């Protein structure tokens, strides 16, 4: 008689303790470090839209109001408390800030980084401090091509995808293409973008490609008069630019005023951020990319409709690709954490995150590269066309992830030069 009584008491005690600990856990916060540009030239077009998206998505996650297929309140039941950090200041400052987030603020995870320089500097520190880190916007392919990381993830494709897709698009859509010219920023982003674009085009055209001029103005130069003249003097069938943010705006304003955009076929691989503010200056026929299936190219879904509607209502402007990138990073993190289960260790969350496939407002994300830590998504380009004064897109081409992203383990440049073996474009 004593034994069943003891067993019942033990079970009751265990259940009470378990319920109490679950309750205590549910009341805990999930401290999330969020690093994005809050000042400097990259803040307006990139950092602030990303922060706005973080505010919107975190509120929805905490309230449990994100549309299907995302379910549940908070991250594994915990309410997210964001700790924002300004990304301005360079890689050295950011590594210190990262340490502060981990050691002083005690965050559970970090989502951040727009600058490729920061994305190359942070992973080593994340590994050292064993901190789950999701890179949300930077484009350099070097992060997972040059090293393997256990604690670091990136939930969007690299810039290689933008430019391989751009080359495929102009190859297929610009008749009698013989020559190209480029204007790209004078740092790794601009040089890598131009290299991937021209190398892919050479492969697609059997090595036959004339490059009339390659312009690499300083980042945030603002004045492009001489470069525009050089593009006029050295006329080409297509002008390629991977300019972003304020540099895109300045180039569009100055080039449009001088007729360059109307007289030439220009492809803007990251031009989507300029659509809301300077769409009137872009001529019909301009080829626009959004660094993935984002903004006007986002596939129809309940989640995307919610994101676009809520973002526009709350912030007065539609979400651009940095906002989508942030949303994907947060949703990916939540799904991995939820999949790992309540009370899971960081290592268990990492296992859940590796190879994860999920749907964000910008469509399907497959963590299929970089040993399951690097995402691959589809890429979309289209030509701008005004209908009754409204900006729309025509000749929209969607390239599957396996068409424009190097396969697992491949190094981008070598893969392109080898003729992009295994690329699946249909």
């Amino acid at each position, binding site marked *: 008689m004593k034994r069943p009584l003891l067993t019942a008491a033990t079970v009751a005690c265990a259940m009470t303790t378990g319920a109490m600990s679950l309750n205590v856990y549910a009341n805990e916060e999930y401290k999330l470090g969020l690093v994005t540009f*809050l*000042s*400097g*030239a990259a*803040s*307006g*077009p990139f*950092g*602030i839209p990303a922060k706005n998206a973080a505010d919107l998505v975190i509120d929805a996650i905490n309230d449990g109001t994100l549309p299907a297929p995302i379910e549940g309140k908070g991250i594994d039941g915990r309410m997210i408390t964001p700790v924002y950090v300004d990304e301005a200041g360079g890689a050295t400052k950011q590594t210190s800030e990262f340490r502060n987030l981990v050691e002083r603020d005690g965050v559970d995870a970090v989502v951040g980084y727009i600058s490729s320089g920061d994305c190359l500097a942070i992973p080593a520190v994340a590994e050292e401090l064993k901190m789950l880190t999701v890179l949300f916007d930077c484009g350099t392919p070097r992060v997972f091509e040059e090293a393997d990381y256990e604690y670091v993830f990136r939930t969007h494709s690299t810039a290689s995808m933008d430019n391989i897709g751009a080359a495929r698009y102009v190859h297929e859509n610009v008749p009698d293409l013989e020559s190209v010219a480029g204007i790209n920023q*004078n740092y790794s982003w601009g040089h890598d973008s131009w290299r991937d674009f021209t190398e892919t085009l050479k492969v697609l055209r059997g090595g036959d490609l004339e490059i009339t*001029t*390659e*312009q*690499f*103005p*300083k980042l*945030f*130069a*603002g*004045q492009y*008069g*001489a*470069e525009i*003249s*050089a593009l*006029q*003097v050295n006329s080409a069938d297509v002008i390629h630019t991977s300019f972003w*943010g*304020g540099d895109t*705006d*300045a180039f569009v*304003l*100055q080039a*449009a*005023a*001088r*007729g*360059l955009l109307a*007289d030439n076929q220009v492809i803007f691989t990251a031009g989507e951020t300029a659509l809301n*503010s*300077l769409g009137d*200056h872009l001529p019909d026929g301009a080829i626009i990319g959004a660094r993935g299936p984002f903004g006007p190219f986002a596939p129809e879904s309940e989640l995307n409709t919610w994101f676009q509607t809520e973002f526009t209502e709350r912030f007065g402007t539609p979400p651009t690709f940095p906002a989508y990138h942030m949303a994907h990073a947060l949703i990916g993190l939540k799904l991995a954490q939820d999949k790992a289960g309540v009370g899971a260790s960081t290592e268990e969350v990492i296992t859940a995150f590796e190879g994860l496939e999920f749907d964000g407002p910008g469509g399907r994300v497959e963590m299929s590269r970089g040993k399951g830590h690097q995402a691959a998504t589809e890429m979309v380009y289209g030509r701008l066309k005004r209908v009754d004064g409204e900006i729309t897109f025509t000749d929209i081409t969607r390239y599957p992830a396996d068409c424009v992203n190097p396969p697992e383990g491949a190094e981008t440049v070598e893969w392109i030069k080898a003729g992009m073996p295994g690329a699946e474009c249909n």
Partner: protein
Amino acid sequence: MKQLLAILVDGSVYASWLFIISAGLTLIYGVMRILNMSHGSFYALGAYSGAAMVGWYFSTGSVPWFSFVALIAAALVAGISVGLLVERGLLRFMYGRDEVVMILVTYGVLLIMEDAIKLIWGVEPYFAYQPYTLLGRTKFAGLSFANYDFMLIGVSILIGLALWYGLNRTRNGKLLRVVIHDREIASALGINVARIFTITFLIGAGIGSLAGALTAPGLSVVPGMGIEVIVLAFAVVVIGGLGSITGALVGALIVGMARAAAVHLYPDVELFVIYAVMGLVLAFRPQGLFAVANARKI
């Protein structure tokens, strides 16, 4: 031939832009011996106030041509008002300090102004493109140029002439030159040096602000834009000689032409060429092309 024409026009436009930015910086140094790090913030202030005013102006549906007046007036009012605040509220208490101290003080002003600009206008880009497209474009020799850029050349010539006339042909200008030569003797002769300093700082701040306003129509006005240009402005005034208006003009022309030639002929060295020119000039004339080497007072 087409390329040469492009280099000359592009070089002239860029030089004009550089001169308008640098003129105020070199004037303040020449008279006050202050290497004004906050000059870039006055440039940004002019750009923001001009862009905000143009945005408001066009929202009222008023005559487009008067937007130029709105652009310039807003920048001058903002630049001179804030200049007065900075000079009367802070700098006048620092006069006579070491030049390095003044660099630190004005750097502090720069940081404060950058944050104040963000507090007032936020971090979203501002646009004032209407004046840029209003003037149309000119085509010749197969090239197309924005007429606004030619207007910029005209404005820089006007500013240069006004400064030359003001310094050389007016009574106040002569008083100012006395202060440049020796502020102690000038003071002993009864010249109100403090007043000269105030006026000089206001003119310098006003020109810096005007430069920002004239630049705003061709780009998006974003935080940090003032810091980007201050490095270029320093390169120009160092080449020409700190404190020399003629030096700023020649420095701007050298940098403008060198950069335009590099963009057209050797794009890879575009970034390097400006600082190569500066290094070359300093190697042979450490005081710059037009600054007179002074014996140090002990």
